Every structure is written in C-alpha cells, then in structure tokens.
C-alpha cells in the first residue's frame, strides 16, 4: 500500500522518483566540524552564515557527562513550507530527487522562505563576498545537488570522518539510508509540522531536538553572545 500523501508536491511512494535523504548517526558524530568546513569550502559560504552547522550541548552530571552534537542542515522536506511561501517561485523542489533549491537570479529577498522554514535552514547572503558574485539573496543547503547528479555524495558526507552522515535514495530499498531508516529507530526534527523531513537522526538527544528547550536556562555567556549578534546583524 502506498504511503498517504497529503500534498501534491510530496513524492513518497511515487514510483520511479528518487527521494534523496540523509541519515545522521549521532552515535558516530565526534563534533570535529569537518562537515561545516567542507560545506564552507564547497560553496564559499560567507562568514557568519552556515548551510550546515553542528551545535552541541553538554548533558549529564559529572562524571557521566558527554557532548551531544546535532548536525543541522536543510531538511529538504517532502512538503516544504518555503516552496509554498515564495511569492515568485524562486524556491522550488526538484521532483525527481526531492532537492529543495533556490533560483538566485529570481529571489527578490522578501525573506518569506526564511520565515516559513521551521528549521532556520535559510539565511541571507551578505552584500560582499570574496570569490562569488551571488549576494543579497537567500541561500541554503542544496544537498550538494551538483555533486549528487554526478554520482557523488554531498561534501559533508564525503568528509565525515566518523561516517556519521550517510546519504542515499530512500526510494531504493537496497540503499544504506533505506536500510538504516527501516531497521533502526530514527528521529526527525519537528515532525509535528507535517513537513516530512528528509534528514533522519539516530540517537538524537531531546535537549537539542525539542523545540524551545534551549530557551530554558540558556547559559549566560551564550545570551551575551546572542545579544551581541542581534546588535550587529540586520538583514
């Protein structure tokens, strides 16, 4: 029986359509940030903004403490709110593959997609960049569409030293991501929003995945940094 599809844009269970997904096995993530660096290098991502980022939180009580990492990126939702929100169709979903991409030449910079994204995965490119002339439009992770269409895996997956990030086609029952998603307990971020994310986590900690938990008892030093960031960043 095919899966229930609520929106016509969804490709779950549609025969012949690839559905790329990433599984992030947090048991294997060591927080080396190589994925962030690889992404920055691949796309000349400017200072201060990120297509992928790895926040962490120290959890537990001494001596049983550990850093819980939660690599973040665009979830390439099956039903992406950003695509619905864009007034000029500058954001679109590639039907075969499920990539959610951006037409830079069409983006007007209204930030509706940024407001619509439940994952904070979108950001505004600054006015000045050193090597790339795409500026002052919204940008995001592309699941390395340019690499995947040439048979490569995304740069962050390629560089992940612990093989924490695994990439593949969920529609292919023989793929590693299909195997992991079907055999291991996985989580997605904010499932209640109905976005059907294509980024799955194994072993995620609720201190990082649950919406808003960071607001409670936010470390004072972090709040000072946040205040400084807010003072200096206008979009």
């Amino acid at each position, binding site marked *: 029986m095919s899966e229930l599809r609520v929106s016509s844009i969804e490709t779950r269970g549609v025969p012949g359509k690839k559905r790329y997904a990433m599984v992030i096995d947090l048991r294997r993530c060591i927080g080396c940030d190589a994925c962030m660096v690889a992404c920055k290098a691949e796309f000349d991502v400017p200072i201060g903004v990120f297509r992928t980022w790895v*926040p*962490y939180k120290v959890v537990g009580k001494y001596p049983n403490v550990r850093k819980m990492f939660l690599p973040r990126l665009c979830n390439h939702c099956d039903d992406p709110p950003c695509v619905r929100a864009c007034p000029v169709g500058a954001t679109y979903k590639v039907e075969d593959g499920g990539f959610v991409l951006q037409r830079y030449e069409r983006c007007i910079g209204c930030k509706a997609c940024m407001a619509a994204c439940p994952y904070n995965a979108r950001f505004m490119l600054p006015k000045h960049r050193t090597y790339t002339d795409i500026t002052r439009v*919204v940008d995001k992770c592309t699941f390395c569409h340019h690499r995947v269409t040439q048979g490569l895996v995304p740069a962050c997956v390629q560089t992940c030293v612990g093989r924490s990030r695994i990439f593949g086609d969920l529609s292919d029952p023989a793929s590693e991501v299909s195997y992991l998603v079907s055999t291991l307990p996985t989580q997605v971020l904010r499932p209640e929003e109905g976005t059907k994310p294509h980024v799955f986590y194994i072993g995620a900690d609720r201190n990082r995945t649950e919406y808003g938990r960071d607001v409670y008892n936010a470390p004072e030093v972090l709040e000072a940094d946040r205040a400084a960031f807010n003072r200096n960043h206008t979009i």
Partner: protein
Amino acid sequence: MGEFTIFHTVAWPSTYAYYFFVIGISAALFFISGLSWFREEFKSLRTSSFYISFALLVVGGLLLISDLSQPMRFIYTLNPFYWNFTSPLTWGSILLVLFGAASVAYFLAMQKNDAALARKLAVVGSLLALGLPIYTGFDLAVHQHRAVWNTPLIPVLFVALSLISGAAVASFLAKGEARLLASLRQFMLVASAATAVMLLSLLVTTANGGSASELTFMFMTSGLLGAVFIGLGVVLGTAAPLVVLLVPFGKQSSGILLASVLLLVGGMALRYSILMGPQIVHTYF
C-alpha cells in the same frame, strides 16, 4: 563551554509591522471615503480620507520594496509567469496593484463628478481594501510552525485593527463634526471590543498551547516585548480606549480624540509584538 550554537536572525524585521500599520489605515480610509457616497455624515471626509489613503498606499508599497534585499526585483512579483498562488505575498502584490488601480479610477471619477461611477468604484475599491488586512493576516497565518501567527484569528484581527486605526485617523480629519464623530466612535467601539475579545482568546489559547505557544506567550508577556504587547497594545491601546469610549467623556469630541490616539498607539504596538514575538522564539531553535 557547556553549549555551542549558531545564532539566527528574525526573518521579518519591524518594517513589516509599519507596513501592516499604514496599509491597514490606508484600506480603512478608502472604505470611509467610499462610505461617504452612502452615508451623508461621512461626506466631509470623502476627499481628505481618500488622499491620505492613497498616500499611505504609496508609503506602504515603498516600505515593502525597501525591505527587499533586491529592491528592483519587486517587479517580479507582478510577473504572471512567476506567480505562486500558495503564497499570500502573491495575493498581496496582486491586491495592492488592483487596489492602486481602483484608487486612481475612483479619483478620476470624483474629479469628473461622475457620482454613479464613483459609487461603483467605491464599492469595488472597498472590497479590494478589505482584502489588504486579510492578506497581511494570512501572510502570518500560513506559517504552520509559528504560535500566535498560525491561528484563524489573525486575518480577522487585522481587519478589526485596520478599521480601528482608520477610524482613529479619520476622527482627526472630522474637525469636530458631532454626527461624524459619533459614527466614528461607533466604529472604534465595535472594532476595539472585537479586538479585545480576540486578544483574550489569543492569549488564553497561546498560554495553554504546546511548547512553541508556551514560549511565545512567555516572550510576549514578559520583558520589553511584554511591555509593548501587554502594556501598550492590550492595556493602553485596547482596554483604556474602550473605557474612554464607554464613559460619558468618550462621547465628547476630546474624548474621542483621546481614544483615537490610544488606539493608534495600541494598533502599532499590537502589530509589532504579534510580528516579533513568534520570530524571537524561533531564533532559539
């Protein structure tokens, strides 16, 4: 360090709150101008409220364009090949153009003293004007992950706020005409009573919602934003003018003008806090 994260900015800055404010006034003033063809007491406001409505429409358009990071590409929103009808921003760009065109046609009909045509255009323009606060409400309401925004109340609340702000501005243009002020007082009274009920409903449902609602409630009722929302928006900008309008002093010209000032302050504060509250919460995710 026990924690590391990157920070996120709010997507829509206060420019949008100013836009909601001016476009709400513009829509309501056009409605009041149009009403003058059907209700005698509004006749003195026919041209003055129309001129201000049109000026604010231009200001609103410029505010929207100035907030774009690619301002010259605003023209793309008018390209039918780019239209995306799942986005309320598309409805808005079409509505703004149609409302602007209706306003110009209405102005020309008034200039030619063509009363029959002006009456028809007043009705058409008023319906388009009604669409402006409704679409701005949907701009917010369609975001499924934002507490407060994602409620059916927001478009209706924006219509009520539009009527309040427009009537408040019109009361300054009324130049003390007793009958006109009495009608405007009725508008403000009914719309601000409806706003009070909607705000109460919004507060109660938000306070008893899920984690996102709970946090949004916390941000909107404490600290600086709490002072803006509860202090300026709810107490000073909704409850106080309601009381002023209900007591005998509120039937006098000075009472109505005082209530108008309070309602304008409240209208701006409510729009600002409703825009910013849910966005601040989200920067923590």
